[in-house]
């Protein structure tokens, strides 16, 4: 049974996120202990027996609340969620956002590794050479200029990043990532560079995984890259912790994503909704009932918290009066 629960929550899924968010926002202040939810307000004109019943009810409820809250705490301690997506990292990561923008930036970059500035200079040189060669009249020069202009436009169309393939864009992205992390010029293999390159590859790979869920071979490759990155970063933590924390901060990862066990399996795809709200891991009746139990527990605890806060407010008012 223990193994089952361990597998069920292996990729740090968020159990009933909707409930979590509603209770998280309206969680009771520190002073309002959840046991306050058991508070029974006995009216002064209530009969003796009635008061006794209510007091006993309060005692019973208090016990129940303490038990539930503790059980819920235990559950939470057992299933600690990952702080960020273990594959893609933070949602708004500056480094990856910048790389993605650069790859789509067709004014500054050209396809197949050509430099836009050099391109402009070279074409100007070519035009000038053609003009020098002809040394003709104004009309002829004008026609040469027009021809060169047409050539330039054609080249710009061919070399536009919009018209290139994914592989070429990936190469550009890898080059940019390498240049950001390299220790010195020409450094291609230090752990942080390897991790950065793998991150770029994983991001490109996940785009394809999202588009084609049935390409199992490709998914497997991405999974391997995620594991590889984890291994490299683990080494970097041993070797140079300062650089390690810098690298993971820049790549939008966290320490727990690297040090904890993770496998990019079906559970991950389901929990992080890679292919929408699809159930990919089938649970047996027993497992399902266990999940439902935890759901109910969570719901109850959030209800206790709400009620406790209300009772707390009432008590505060009574005290002030």
């Amino acid at each position, binding site marked *: 049974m223990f193994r089952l629960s361990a597998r069920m929550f292996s990729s740090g899924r968020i159990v009933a996120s909707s409930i979590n968010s509603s209770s998280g926002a309206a969680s009771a202040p520190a002073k309002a202990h959840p046991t306050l939810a058991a508070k029974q307000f006995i009216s002064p004109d209530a009969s003796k027996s009635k008061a006794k019943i209510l007091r006993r009810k309060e005692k019973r409820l208090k016990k129940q609340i303490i038990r539930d809250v503790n059980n819920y705490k235990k559950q939470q301690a057992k299933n600690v969620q990952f702080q960020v997506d273990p594959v893609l990292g933070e949602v708004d990561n500056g480094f990856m956002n*910048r790389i993605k923008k650069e790859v789509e930036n067709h004014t*500054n970059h050209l396809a197949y590794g050509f430099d*836009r500035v050099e391109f402009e200079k070279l074409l*100007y040189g070519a035009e000038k050479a053609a003009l020098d060669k002809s040394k003709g009249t*104004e009309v002829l020069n004008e026609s040469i200029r027009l021809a060169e202009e047409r050539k330039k436009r054609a080249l710009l169309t061919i070399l536009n990043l919009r018209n290139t393939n994914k592989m070429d864009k990936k190469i550009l992205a890898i080059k940019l990532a390498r240049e950001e992390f390299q220790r010195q010029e020409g450094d291609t293999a230090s752990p942080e560079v390897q991790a950065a390159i793998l991150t770029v590859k994983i991001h490109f790979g996940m785009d394809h995984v999202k588009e084609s869920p049935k390409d199992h071979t490709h998914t497997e490759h991405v999974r391997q890259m995620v594991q590889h990155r984890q291994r490299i970063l683990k080494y970097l933590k041993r070797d140079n912790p300062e650089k390690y*924390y810098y690298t993971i901060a820049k790549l939008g990862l966290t*320490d727990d994503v690297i040090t904890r066990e993770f496998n990019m399996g079906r559970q991950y795809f389901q929990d992080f909704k890679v292919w929408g709200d699809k159930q990919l891991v089938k649970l047996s009746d027993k497992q399902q009932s266990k999940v439902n139990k935890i759901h109910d527990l969570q719901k109850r605890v959030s209800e206790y918290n709400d009620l406790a806060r209300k009772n707390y407010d009432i008590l505060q008012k009574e005290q002030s009066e």
Partner: protein
Amino acid sequence: MAKQNFIGLVVSQGKMAKTVKVRVQRKVYDTRIHKEVIKRKDYLVHDEGNLCKEGDVVRIESIPKISARKAFAVAEIKVNKGQQFALYETLAKEKVIEEEKQKLEIFIKEKQQFESVVTQIEDLRRLDQIVSTYQTQPNADRSQLLSEIDRIKQKWGIQSWPSEEPILSLDINEKEKSIREVNLDLIISKIMSDEYTDDRNKILAASTSTPVGELKKHTIKNIVRKYVLNSKNELPFEV
């Protein structure tokens, strides 16, 4: 009697107030296998001030029992690895935020550089046009053309037009600076030939202690290559 002392690793922190979990390892002789085996025990340890971080190595000392499971307190932090890691983490986050700002500036600067090159090329084109009209059309407004020529020349620091000086620097031209780099294969093959055996042996003797006879051909080639690429070294012949 001295107080009971252990050295252990902090494995859990921040879950209980003023308490950390410390793992202590010790060797116990197992009589069944006649071998020392490592045994571990976790202690809940009092940490007044919440100083310890996960990963620290600490010395713990026995104290009068203060709760059901707490009978030890942290005496000293021996290796503050965990604290250092926590510090690195916070520093790294600040550094990354700082760098993101710098990157934005660099991006804007590169964009401006690109635009300036484009305007320079446009200006040069205009200059060409003006020069040609100046030469071919005698009835054009000459003073205006001349003033425009002067303006463009001043803007980009051009002495004469058309000029022999390079005005736009190209990456391709920069690479041609080193003659050795361009003719590297030729030079190496020349030194590797039998004609220059003595010179080659001198180069090898200067760089390695292993005798020349034991060196493999590719190793020799690599050493020669390194030698040639360093412009301070003299070559046995003129390039």
